[in-house]
């Protein structure tokens, strides 16, 4: 005889799998739509023939322009949006669980500002400090600098939360303050730099998918997959942690080690993407929240669910950004600021007792 709890649990699990499958289908559909959308007109069958041509290695029958647009321009950009959405979403979900605070995300913790300072440093000073690095590799210097600084800021937050506790006030205020400090650094750099570099910094700060190319995808994909698998493997521990440090310790979770490693890996995921795209705010905050509403807070399902949501939100926003004012494109970072700001506001207003404690 089955008991009602089993039924309830299994029904819940089934529902969660259905939801994840639906999101996957939705994401696949969006990817295909995004491949079609743009100022260069392509029919779905043309897109399909390019894709199948590339996969089978039979590219001779394709129109060169079709192939360039689909395979060299649109596909890497779409993949970058998807990977960035996934990375920021899982980073946000895991950071929220680790610091036991639902308002935490790579963006609200100041990681983005810190990473942007790193990138700006590399843009402005890179060539002067590292004259022997060929221009081709300057991009990687930017990426590395953004990553290191992003990491530093999370280390700082981690230190503060250990000394002062991880209440919303402490974490968010620390994030804001760290953000200000690094923004000051960015302003100084902007002030002293010339026109060309100024534009580069500004573009980076607004955040967008124009850094997309196959090299970026090759760098990000393995990191993103490994980070996802690692963080997903922490699910049970994260679940236990959400009931409190003491209960987690009682059920054999090494809390300090878990926090440190979890933050390290989620920061890695987030900052590697940010380094290529520039600042993309709020994805890491929105995706987990929508995910929790849809699928509940069991991290085994929440992490993949918010990863898919993050990818979906960012891909749709980016496609919107590059097609709405065609041929001019709006930086997707700007759109995310808009949507995310409103979302954050809603959280504050409706969530008095539930989210913000």
């Amino acid at each position: 005889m089955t008991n009602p709890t089993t039924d309830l649990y299994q029904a819940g699990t089934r529902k969660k799998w259905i939801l994840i499958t639906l999101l996957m289908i939705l994401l696949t559909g969006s990817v295909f739509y995004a491949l079609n959308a743009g100022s260069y007109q392509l029919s779905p069958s043309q897109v399909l023939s390019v894709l199948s041509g590339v996969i089978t290695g039979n590219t001779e029958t394709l129109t060169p322009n079709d192939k360039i647009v689909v395979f060299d321009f649109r596909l890497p950009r779409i993949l970058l949006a998807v990977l960035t959405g996934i990375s920021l979403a899982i980073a946000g979900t895991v950071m929220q669980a680790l610091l036991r605070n639902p308002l935490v995300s790579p963006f609200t913790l100041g990681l983005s500002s810190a990473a942007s300072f790193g990138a700006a440093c590399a843009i402005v000073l890179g060539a002067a400090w590292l004259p022997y690095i060929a221009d081709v590799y300057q991009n990687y210097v930017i990426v590395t600098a953004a990553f290191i600084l992003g990491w530093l800021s999370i280390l700082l937050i981690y230190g503060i939360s250990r000394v002062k506790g991880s209440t919303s006030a402490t974490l968010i205020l620390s994030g804001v303050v760290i953000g200000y400090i690094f923004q000051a650094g960015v302003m100084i750099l902007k002030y002293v730099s010339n026109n060309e570099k100024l534009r580069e910094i500004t573009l980076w700060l607004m955040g967008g998918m124009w850094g997309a190319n196959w090299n970026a995808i090759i760098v990000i994909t393995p990191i993103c997959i490994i980070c996802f698998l690692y963080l997903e493997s922490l699910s049970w521990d994260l679940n236990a942690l959400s009931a409190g440090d003491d209960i987690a310790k009682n059920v054999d979770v090494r809390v300090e080690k878990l926090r440190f490693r979890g933050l390290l890996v989620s920061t890695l995921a987030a900052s590697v993407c940010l380094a290529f795209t520039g600042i993309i705010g709020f994805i890491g905050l929105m995706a987990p929240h929508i995910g929790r509403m849809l699928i509940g807070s069991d991290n085994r399902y929440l992490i993949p669910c918010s990863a898919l949501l993050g990818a979906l939100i960012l891909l749709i926003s980016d496609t919107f950004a590059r097609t709405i004012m065609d041929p001019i494109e709006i930086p997707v970072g700007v759109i995310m600021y808009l949507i995310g700001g409103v979302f954050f506001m809603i959280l504050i207003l409706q969530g008095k007792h539930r989210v913000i404690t």
Partner: protein
Amino acid sequence: MTIQVSDLCVSYGSFRVLKDVNCSLENSEILCVIGPNGSGKSTLVKALAGILTPDSGTIIINGSDADTISGYERGRTIGYVPQDFSYLTSATVLELVLLGRRPHVSWSLSETDLAIVYSALEQLGILGMAQKNITALSGGERQKVFIARALAQEPELFLFDEPTSALDIRHQIDVFEMMRDLVRHKGRSVLVVVHDLNFAYHYSDRVILMDEGSIVATGPPDQVMTHDLIESVYHVPMQYVDTSQGRYIMPLWT
């Protein structure tokens, strides 16, 4: 399940909370820990649960030193219900009670796991709330959910830190009866921190009376909770009323 604590010292920073505590827990008994606020009761429980690291002294669990017991093993043998608990955002009652199975599962839950969770929910009368969000519950209901979580963990020893502080008298009795059942019929041991002297007197097999980080007395309730000792530790004049139903300990209104 036996525990032997010798010369245990625990500090928060430079403040020593437990001073050379010696005590023991026997197989299948309800051991109540009583004492005024700040006397070190919760600290003792946390040290036993492996949450706080002692400065010195030893804790022997089932004959082996607690330091040598893996966290995994400890998670299976000791279940802890903290005094205050908070939950991150939303979770359903079911999700929270499922956490109790954490030390027993690696990834997915079996039929057995779910049956255990079911009986935990049933014992605390919260089956109907399984799908409710934890944030929508009252303080007392939430307390029961956390007790159910510990039940689902199926440990040999339960450490309850004031498990009934938010419950009404009916549910307080239910929880203590449940503890008695765990001890008498399922061979578990229970160590419970409690403020209500009458519950301690009525339900415990043995009592530990603590004051200012030390153990004042330990033994059967009628020997430890004497008029003189209770008055001197709590600094409240007491009245002991013996009835056919047993002894009642009451403060004397002055």
